[in-house]
């Protein structure tokens, strides 16, 4: 059973509200921001980044109860942008956000809302329509190849036959503008858990607060745990990176999330420049996470337009590579059968979106020179003679 084949069969006929009934996920339709996975019906929520949602092993979202670890090389903060989208999406969906280790300014710098992710895509495709080669109508419905992750399942549902029910359905994922600031009534719904020095593990008070917050809230409240730059020495005490502290924290966090498996998701960012992947501690952190993705920004993305893989001059050049080391649910089962695994991904962060797309090298541009030279029959060109 190929993934794409089923995708076609599923998308036009079945609207989103009908799926939960079939999959017997009674809680899913009522809660905004939660929808059943097209893969196996488990509830998922959006990471606030549509192309990241689509990357997650066919679930089109982060499955509830799962922890996503975003690692980043270098001194850039692309992972921080992903984390802000994740938090902002939670604010829009009126979920409860728990931010660990950073002051409240972090919460004030969340990106501003533009609209639903679908609306942004429609606008973009409108803009593109004029200068794009016309392709057959039936293929156009399949979505933009290359523009998003291959498993993008929302594209087919957008145009054409939509019944009013889906039209009214609240958006699952939103688009945000990094240059604006988020204003939303439920932005006060964020709690900031400071790191307090303690005699034993510095993570113990954090766990306690998370535990009480989650167990004392009503069952309808969805929680997001946001941990920016874990183990960053400017925020965490030196003994935090002792294995017995940080690994016990991850284990307990995993326990907490599996105890409330339908209500909690978490995203953690982590700098690989401080803690390289080749160390045993980091490997254990990864083993304890449900999903692990790694961002490798290109060193000079500002002037790399010519060389770093933009297929046409209109596309923005990618700013880095993205590697998926482990995907939620898929790898827990044993892994492997997803088409997104093992691909080379590139990411582009622009003002309005974080886009992940397949990485491909452009035709080498230096070759034109060589072709010219060979066409001229080996004669030295004028430019070569002048100094």
């Amino acid at each position: 059973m190929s993934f794409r084949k089923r995708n076609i069969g599923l998308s036009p006929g079945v609207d989103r509200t009908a799926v939960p009934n079939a999959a017997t996920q009674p809680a899913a339709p009522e809660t905004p921001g939660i929808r059943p996975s097209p893969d196996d019906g488990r509830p998922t929520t959006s990471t606030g980044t549509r192309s990241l949602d689509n990357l997650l092993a066919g679930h089109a979202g982060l499955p509830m109860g799962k922890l996503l670890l975003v690692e980043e090389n270098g001194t850039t903060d692309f992972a921080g942008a992903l984390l802000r989208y994740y938090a902002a999406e939670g604010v829009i969906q009126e979920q409860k956000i728990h931010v660990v280790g950073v002051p409240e300014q972090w919460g004030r710098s969340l990106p501003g809302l533009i609209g639903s992710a679908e609306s942004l895509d429609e606008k973009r495709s409108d803009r593109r329509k004029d200068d794009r080669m016309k392709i057959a109508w039936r293929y156009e419905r399949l979505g933009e190849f290359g523009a998003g992750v291959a498993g993008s399942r929302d594209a087919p549902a957008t145009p054409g036959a939509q019944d009013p029910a889906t039209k009214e359905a609240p958006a699952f994922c939103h688009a945000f503008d990094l240059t604006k600031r988020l204003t939303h009534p439920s932005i006060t719904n964020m709690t900031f858990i400071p790191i307090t020095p303690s005699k034993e593990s510095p993570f113990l008070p954090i766990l306690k607060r998370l535990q009480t917050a989650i167990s004392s809230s009503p069952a309808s409240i969805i929680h997001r745990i946001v941990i920016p730059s874990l183990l960053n020495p400017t925020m965490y005490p030196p003994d935090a990176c002792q294995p017995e502290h940080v690994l016990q924290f991850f284990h307990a966090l995993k326990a907490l999330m599996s105890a409330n498996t339908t209500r909690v998701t978490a995203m953690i960012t982590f700098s690989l420049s401080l803690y390289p992947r080749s160390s045993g501690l980091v490997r254990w952190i990864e083993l304890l996470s449900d999903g692990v993705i790694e961002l490798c920004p290109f060193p000079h993305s500002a002037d790399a337009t010519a060389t770093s893989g933009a297929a046409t001059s209109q596309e923005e050049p990618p700013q880095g590579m993205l590697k998926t080391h482990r995907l939620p649910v898929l790898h827990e089962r044993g892994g492997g059968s997803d088409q997104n695994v093992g691909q080379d991904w590139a990411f582009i962060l622009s003002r309005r979106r974080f886009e992940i797309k397949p990485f491909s090298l452009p035709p080498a541009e230096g070759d034109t020179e060589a072709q010219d030279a060979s066409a001229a029959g080996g004669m030295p060109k004028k430019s070569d003679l002048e100094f």
Partner: protein
Amino acid sequence: MPSQPPLPPLLAPYVTLLPESSLTLASSILGATSNWLVLRFLHAALSSPSLNPAFGADETQTGIKKKVVLVSFLRSFDFWKTEAKRLGLDLGRLAEKQQFAFIDGLSELFYAPDASTPNTSPAGLGSSPRTTLPLRSPPGVMPGRGPPPAAAPPRGNISVTRAQAEPGIAKKLHFTGRGLAALDLIEKNIIAVIEQQKSSVEEIDELVLILDQPDLLLAATGPTMGIGATEIAEWVTGLQQHAHATVLTLATDAPLIHNASVSAGQPATPIETEHATFAIGLAHRARSVMQLRTLETGAAKDVSGVLRISRGGGWSAGEEESWEEKEVLYFIQRDGGVSVFGRGES
């Protein structure tokens, strides 16, 4: 897509015949987890030969009857239950029939939430009168309802306050204190469950103990808390003595194994040296080693990874010659089925 048999034929001889006091090591890495293999071990031991497992396996099955105690440090019971259901195993019902016991090393190992206190009262009520009854549930009982009779402790001297809080979970492990004392407590708790499983039905003669990633215990404690590779290895030995056969899974990612060697260039951290010592020591003791890894050539659409089955250091020379070492590919389908095939086949 043809549906796969729950137990692929190529794999079957390696997961079914576990000789007495043998240790089978299943090693995994980040991109190739061992959960599916553990499920195959579960299936090999627990599935009844009769077509319909709903009708008493006790009567139809003659000969050796197997039981399993699964100790999982990284996965919740929910995960195992749902995944086993895909293979046609109802762990909840099997737990009621005392064929299976789950020991939860995840939820309260390092940090026990206070919120579970209300659960203790029904557990305390339920435990004492049930100990004497040789219970076998009627076949019609729905799984996962009510307190499980399977989980009643035979002896009262071990603290099992919230043991029966959730159906199907025989015990939740706690790590309290430090060093050997903490390990001993965990060992005692696991042995209590094993002994109670053994005592429940007379004709039982094989109990398979599956330890799922006990290396977490080592990683998350370490020498600063008085636990090193030697202590954990002894702890495993102590548990092995109470089981017919033991299956143990652990992580063997490259940083955890190779950083400890002298040639690695950089000084190894304790977590790396201890883990390497533990893993290599176990491989020398194990009868067979099943090693899971991803393809060296990158990901493929129809291959999940490579399974290498080899004899471990504990292989006794007198054993049957038909058991051959093998390297095969495996592929996990979306529905949970696994196909195992040689290179070049499909």
